């Protein structure tokens, strides 16, 4: 009908105009910046790379959950408290109660995913904004975590998980490292440095790829495929885009939203479990502010705060930006408070660019 008014869309424009453009530009900017100011500080040596990829992977794990939930039109502000809660529960079950670690992990997952479902049910049944409901859970879970920890151990930090996890089959899935043989081989070839002294002499400085990174990659791929390639993904967009319109054509909006709350809780627990296995301890104050960091990653990644629009790959890039900036300022020796200034600036720039792009794509006025 309006053919004559359609401009020929150039291929370049087609490639450029995508929801992740803000995050891609931000990531490039951040890498160029740190290559310039911290290029010779070890940040881009094997150990340095491992350092910021692990931090970015942590952000990515919770960002994937937050991203799908936000596209489905909801928030979860209890992610940080959920991380603290999950960690303490694993430690209490395994160290205090003497359960095998695998059982402690599985029961904790069941518990937190149920709590995610409760979050979802409350939001759906009360019709209250998820902002309020999950804000309540932010306090409830944090309070419960500290109380439980003090009640059972008189402390807010519970150690001894590493010992309890020795020989466990499930613990290495979260705390282990893979491709260790390959890294040893690279060290033998002299491609990566080895320890020259101490008990680990001859071993590479980077032993392998932490499972945390495998989890992050797995979740990113899963989230991206689910969102863009499946029927359920269409329902996620529809639930967040316009729940009523979606219901009218038979999309089970409530089920979609509740499942996304459960998935967010799952991601938080993956984060918590990996952290507990790495540190060998749990602390009641872990995960503080993680909900906001997840949401910021998602928004840098191009998602719309009000739902219905966004990208998992974008959120993962947002997490990468977050991790690189946080660790990069450490490597460059800059004041750590500057991390926040820089991050805030990137957030604003990325969101301005995202908003502009989104208007072009969706025709919003």
């Amino acid at each position, binding site marked *: *009908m*309006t*053919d004559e008014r*359609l401009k020929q*869309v150039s291929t370049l424009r087609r490639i450029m105009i995508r929801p992740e453009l803000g995050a891609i530009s931000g990531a490039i900017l951040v890498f160029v910046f740190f290559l310039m100011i911290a290029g010779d500080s070890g940040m881009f040596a094997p150990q340095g790379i491992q350092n910021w990829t692990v931090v970015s992977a942590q952000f990515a794990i919770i960002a994937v959950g937050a991203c799908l939930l936000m596209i489905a039109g909801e928030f979860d502000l209890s992610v940080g408290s959920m991380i603290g809660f999950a960690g303490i529960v694993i430690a209490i079950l395994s160290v205090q109660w003497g359960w095998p670690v695998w059982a402690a992990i599985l029961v904790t997952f069941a518990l937190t995913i149920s709590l995610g479902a409760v979050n979802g049910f409350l939001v759906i049944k009360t019709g209250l904004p998820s902002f309020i409901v999950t804000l309540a859970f932010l306090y409830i879970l944090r309070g419960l975590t500290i109380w439980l920890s003090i009640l059972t151990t008189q402390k807010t930090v519970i150690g001894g998980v590493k010992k309890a996890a020795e020989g466990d089959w499930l613990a290495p899935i979260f705390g282990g490292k893979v491709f260790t043989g390959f890294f040893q081989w690279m060290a033998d070839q002299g491609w990566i440095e080895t320890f020259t002294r101490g008990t680990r002499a001859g071993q590479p400085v980077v032993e392998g790829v932490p499972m945390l990174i495998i989890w992050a990659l797995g979740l990113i791929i899963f989230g991206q495929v689910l969102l863009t*390639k*499946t*029927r359920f*993904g*269409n329902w996620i*967009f*529809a639930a967040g*885009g*316009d729940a*009523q*319109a*979606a*219901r*009218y*054509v*038979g*999309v089970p909006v409530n089920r979609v939203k509740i499942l996304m709350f459960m998935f967010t809780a799952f991601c938080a627990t993956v984060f918590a479990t990996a952290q507990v296995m790495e540190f060998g301890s749990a602390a009641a104050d872990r995960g503080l502010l993680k909900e906001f960091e997840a949401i910021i990653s998602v928004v840098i990644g191009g998602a*719309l705060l009000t739902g*219905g*629009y966004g990208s998992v790959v974008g959120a993962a890039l947002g997490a990468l930006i977050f991790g690189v900036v946080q660790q990069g300022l450490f490597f460059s020796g800059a004041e750590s408070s500057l991390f926040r200034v820089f991050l805030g600036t990137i957030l604003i720039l990325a969101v301005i660019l995202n908003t502009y792009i989104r208007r072009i*794509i*969706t*025709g*919003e006025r």
Partner: protein
Amino acid sequence: MTEPIIEMKNIEKHFGAVIALGGVSFDVCPGEVHCLLGDNGAGKSTFIKTMSGVHRPTSGTILFEGREMNFESPRDAMAAGIATVYQDLAMIPLMSVTRNFWMGNEPIRKIGPFRFFDFELANRVTMEEMAKMGINLREPSQAVGTLSGGERQTVAIARAVYFGAKVLILDEPTSALGVRQTSNVLATIDKVRKQGIAVVFITHNVRHALAVGDRFTVLNRGRTLGTARRGEITPEELQDMMAGGQELAQLESSLGGTV
């Protein structure tokens, strides 16, 4: 004319103390456009929502293809072949045309144990169906938000027709449209009728109704003021009925007969 495909008898709907519908009877036949007219708050939307399973009538019967029906949800009504294009929420602007078109009915392609949204098929069918309605999309991944109001209504109508609607209910599809776009939507309605689908067309606008309607029913404060066939009624009579005659006649004279 043939047998009515859907017949509503003495439908009442109360919302607490509000009597939104006080006994409305109405039917529509395949290949017919039955216009439902009435002023704001007359109960038109409420009435078609009882037809499409959103509301359960307080009393009255619904016969669909001669059998009594009790729709529990819009899903039931849709499964029976009753599709509705709502006044305000026909489409989700942030999503692509394809995603909107197939929302709730996504085609599946299996690869091993995995079930994927078959975008290849979905995109192709969407383009074809839109072309049949006279709209050539730039690309099926184009967001609905970039379409005009009339094009959006057309996507919604094309979707309903493609998914085998036997009854298509349109709640004020032309209310927000300009002249050109309105005529496009009216032309689409005409195409749909010619495929043998029963159309219920709600509008405030007598001229739009007369352009495509076979029969006209006027609602006023939850009751029918009667049904007329095409040719049995003049635009003026229809207009008067809609606004409760008297007052409008006075208004009209003061406005110089422009309403």
